[in-house]
């Protein structure tokens, strides 16, 4: 069997036993990326030399009998929203084209400490805002199951690279569904842990009360393996949870006898594709066959999830993205009107990176007057560096936070967020998990929703509640449409129910093989 066909658990075991070298493993994935990613566009950066050198070090340490980390030799792809000191971090934006962070994200540092091999940075919707990856400044990712279709977003590159066996594991981030939705549309397993379970330090901030890092892999067991290394408290993130990290991989085997799973009738309303509904119902039946019982539960405010999310997330984003000011890092519009160029004093050359306008091209005709050259530089840098969806959300958030609208929009959304959280708390008094579809439809065509921002927002209708409530969720394939597209199933659990979510998904995957199906890709 090729290394690219093995699970993360199998790869780590094979490398540990000496049946496979870390170098051969890393090269197998890098070769597959080189041959296939031209048509998928899942990767924004891959540093073959550094990855192979890292793998060789692990092999040398193994030969010398030195202790190895729990992920020794495992290739991992990382969403380009997480800072890496040795690879650029663009967050899918021209604003950060070529940006080289001065430190590793906590998750990246944990992966390296576990002796994983970071093989590349994955493509994503700009600043993680989007549900199709079409908002990337570096071109959309294509769904490996149908290259004319979107992989979902915003962690579309992370989902697509796992689906295409370009990486056994990828790291994503989920603010309103950005791990689970692309995992569902690409037929892989995506895990969004409880808010705070994994440190956000070094994750480019989008909406800080909702953002959560998590793994995407072929199986729940592989997600559990990676979780053991990346979860846990970080003194550098005051919102990271201090709770002890369980040995997730040791807690997967207990049968599901007596597990109470909630089913929400309102999930099956208008807009749910019939093939998706049928796949989800079949998964409920499989869980029942495995010993679980199904109970109807209500989430009365679920229908307000999208409007609540599309106030809170843009408000937080408008504040978080204020840091892109053309001063500290990122794109700066040059030259400023009416302002002489500052002398270069022996420092590195002015970066060309990020410029949307070519040198010599006339400046865009902007409306209005700027108070000062500084303000003009801010406004033009941001106009040139951000793409349309990011601008839309910054504008929406700024509007909703502005004088006269704050109470009607932002404060109102925070109150409804409380109601949504209370719905989940109440439901979890009678059931252990809540299940349903991940997305209302299977993967849609590239370009199908780009003309209507609101239609794109609705792809997150089943996933945003998890983030608003701060709880965990996992999505995994539960079937395929007649047209061969994956159908996703989602489980949501109470805060810190990671072991149960992973176990329930793992037990399902022990009975079924949907998660093992591979798209046919021409090499």
């Amino acid at each position, binding site marked *: 069997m090729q290394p690219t066909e093995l699970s993360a658990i199998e790869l780590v075991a094979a490398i540990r036993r000496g049946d496979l070298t870390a170098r051969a493993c890393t090269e197998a994935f890098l070769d597959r990326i080189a041959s296939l990613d031209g048509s998928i566009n899942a990767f924004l950066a891959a540093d073959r030399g550094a990855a192979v050198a890292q793998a060789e070090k692990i092999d040398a340490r193994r030969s010398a009998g030195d202790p190895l980390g729990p992920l020794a030799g495992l290739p991992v792809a990382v969403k380009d929203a997480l800072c890496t000191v040795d690879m650029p971090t663009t967050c899918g934006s021209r604003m950060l084209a070529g940006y080289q962070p001065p430190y590793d994200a906590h998750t990246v540092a944990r992966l390296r400490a576990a002796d994983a091999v970071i093989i590349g940075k994955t493509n994503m919707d700009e600043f993680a805002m989007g549900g199709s990856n079409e908002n990337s400044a570096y071109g959309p990712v294509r769904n490996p199951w149908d290259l004319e279709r979107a992989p979902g977003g915003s962690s579309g590159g992370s989902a697509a690279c796992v689906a295409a066996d370009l990486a056994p594991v990828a790291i994503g981030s989920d603010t309103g569904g950005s791990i689970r939705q692309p995992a569902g549309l690409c037929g892989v397993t995506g895990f969004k842990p409880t808010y705070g379970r994994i440190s956000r330090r070094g994750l480019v901030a989008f909406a800080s009360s909702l953002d959560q890092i998590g793994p995407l892999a072929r199986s729940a067991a592989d997600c559990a393996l990676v979780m053991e290394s990346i979860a846990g408290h970080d003194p550098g993130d005051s919102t990271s949870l201090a709770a002890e990290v369980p040995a997730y991989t040791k807690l997967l085997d207990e049968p599901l006898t007596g597990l109470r799973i909630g089913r929400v009738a309102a999930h099956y309303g208008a807009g749910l594709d019939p093939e998706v509904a049928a796949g989800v119902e079949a998964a409920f039946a499989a869980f029942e066959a495995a010993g679980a019982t199904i109970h109807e539960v209500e989430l009365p405010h679920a229908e307000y999830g999208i*409007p609540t999310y599309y106030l809170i997330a843009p408000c937080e984003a408008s504040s978080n993205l204020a840091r892109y000011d053309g001063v500290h890092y990122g794109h700066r519009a040059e030259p400023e009107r009416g302002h002489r160029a500052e002398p270069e004093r022996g420092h590195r050359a002015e970066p060309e990176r990020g410029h949307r306008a070519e040198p010599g091209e006339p400046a865009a005709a902007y409306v209005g007057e700027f108070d000062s050259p500084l303000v003009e530089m801010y*406004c033009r840098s941001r106009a040139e560096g951000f793409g349309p969806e990011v601008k839309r959300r910054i504008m929406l958030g700024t509007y909703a936070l502005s004088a006269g609208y704050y109470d009607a*929009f932002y404060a109102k959304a925070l109150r409804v967020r409380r109601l949504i959280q209370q719905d989940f708390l109440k439901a979890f008094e009678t059931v252990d998990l809540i299940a349903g579809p991940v997305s209302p439809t299977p993967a849609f065509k590239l370009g199908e929703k780009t003309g209507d*921002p609101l239609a794109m927002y609705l792809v997150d209708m089943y996933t945003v509640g998890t983030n608003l409530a701060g709880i965990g969720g996992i999505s995994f394939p539960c079937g395929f449409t007649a047209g061969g597209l994956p159908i996703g199933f989602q489980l949501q659990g109470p805060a810190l129910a990671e072991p149960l979510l992973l176990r329930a998904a793992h037990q399902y995957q022990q009975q079924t093989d949907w998660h093992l199906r591979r798209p046919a890709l021409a090499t």
Partner: protein
Amino acid sequence: MSLSRQDVAKVGMLARLALTEADLDRMTGELSKIVEFVSQLSTLDTADVEPLAHPLDTRNVFRDDEPGTSLSTEQALASAPRHDGSCFLVPAVLGESGSA
């Protein structure tokens, strides 16, 4: 609920986003539609509901007051579009004639 072009232009300045006439045209329509959509929250009675700004009820989180390491000046300036080795350089902060 709809926004006027003037509203959008004002928000653009608050957000420090330069907008073209075409941006204004497009965003006035798009934002109006989105604001109308999110306004459905006003139909809910939330008079007795406490706002939930954050899913965790942690309050102040303090670390021990011990010196740690931070970025060097060189590291902090490494990605700055303009700097002089110790400071970030910016255009004039005061009006049009304030260029120094």
